[in-house]
């Protein structure tokens, strides 16, 4: 399987990474090189095999449903590129 340039642009959009026109062919080649590398997996017989969900058997731990965190607003905002009045500031979000 391989991707065409339209697919590369679509993937970039999904990944929210801007790509320029000049970058697309190069990215296409790189992605296709990797897809060619993994293509051999198509031939493996996986009938009746469950996909791995947990690499080491473990049970999700539970705890008491009480608040144990919070009131750390300054720490949360400390690394913000732009913040004001306890909010992260962003450019407009179009509906």
């Amino acid at each position: 399987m391989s991707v065409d340039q339209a697919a590369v642009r679509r993937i970039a959009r999904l990944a929210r990474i801007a790509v320029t026109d000049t970058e697309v062919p190069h990215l296409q080649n790189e992605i296709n090189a990797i897809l060619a590398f993994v293509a051999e997996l198509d031939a493996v017989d996986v009938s009746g095999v469950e996909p791995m969900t947990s690499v080491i058997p473990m049970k999700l731990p539970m705890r008491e449903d009480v608040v144990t965190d919070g009131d750390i607003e300054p720490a949360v905002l400390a690394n913000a590129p732009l913040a004001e009045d306890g909010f992260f500031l962003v450019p407009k979000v179009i509906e």
Partner: protein
Amino acid sequence: MDADLKDLTALTLAEARDALRFRQISSVELTQAHLSAIERAKGLNAFIATTAQKALGMARESDARIVAGEAGPLEGLPIGVKDLYATKGVHTQACSHILDRFKPAYESTVTANLWRDGAVMLGKLNMDEFAMGSSNETSFYGPVASPWLPPNWSAEKARAALGGDKRGLLTPGGSSGGSAAAVAARLCLAATASDTGGSIRQPAAFTGTAGIKPTYGRCSRYGMVAFASSLDQAGPIARTVRDCAIMLRSMAGPDAKDSTCAVADVPDYEAAIGRSLKGLTIGIPREYRLEGMNPEIEALWRRGADWLRAAGARIVDVSLPNTRHALPAYYIVAPAEASSNLARYDGVRYGLREPAGEIVELYEKTRARGFGAEVRRRLMIGTYVLSAGYYDAYYVRAQKIRTLIKRDFETVFADGVDAILTPATPSAAFGIGEKGSADPVEMYLNDVFTVTVNMAGLPGLVAPAGRSDEGLPLGLQVIGRPFDEETLFTLGHAIEQSAGSLAMPDAWWA
């Protein structure tokens, strides 16, 4: 230069621990010696941030605790920390531009454990960006030069290259290249590192140091910048197997803040050093003998088996039939998980933000500017294999193959094998700029012996095992049962002892 201070950096972690305990040296002296060494080795680019004042403050506190008889297991010992670990108030960027100026308001559990036990923080270590790489060449801060000289290079030639683009100098491996280089260059007594596909074990092999990736869940991942959550694991790199055992005992342990961290006691790993190998069965997997394999590597592997046999272990041939599918399956699973984990870097809450008029433009421009080429490549592959129409063909299939890979190991262990001996890397260290520019897959092939271990969640240890014909370090890997790191320390020590002392390189860089 004070000759005594120079000698202090030649101590192993265990030797320094004992010297401190018996008041032969102070932590301040020890820490200062390492800070001076780091300063002289700036050209190697192993450390990307040094915390000198903090280190000396911690050292003074350690000296006071030693005098008061309250020394912890790592009291006063200067350690380097991979830039992947959140260190409160200190540079933490996973060597990526997208985390520009990020200083966490919290500490990772693994490093908190080290400070709890009295260790001293020297600074943050260089790494491949977001742990994606096998040579430390994808770092935003530039490559790390291995302290090992390329074959036939003079010290003068190496120093000249250090001042330029470092081309031709050896890579220390990756992604924990800074950690491995710093330990081998004696800039710190040990370093924290991490391993998702081989990022502790391959650099350890390339630099003649020891490293262990413990069982998935042995150490907490809280505060580690996440790459692939089902594969990532914390571990140490140090100059000896014993030093790794000492480090791991402090690093490991349960943590309520990581639901994938095992609730299991941490044994005294150091006690496993020097145990007898009698009664142990070691498997040699035939599928690891690759076509066109480097004859030096194959010879070293055979030598390793002979050493273990001589030490009392039983050596048997085993089969792990799905071995060859591990690397391609890894390059589906890991990028997929990364595409999810790295979605958070969007310019909103921390790190780099590019100017934009509207929100999606903010995301796209910030991520294009902030991520390097290798990260971008893997995020796009990861996004593709998880996208509608391709999810079953790629991601689900790779996860089924992962089940098969794990099952291979379970079968072998159930048959009475205690551990598996394999090569660590397909070659000795290669030069900076030598691989990967034409074909990304060329670099990925470095991980061929190591990714199986992450895919199966097992512990894997690399011990220094000898030199190539050109004089470069080579390592051997032992893979163990879940949570049986003790057997790996016993075996690793036996390999290390059989190989004989491998002197670390003299400081040509200053």
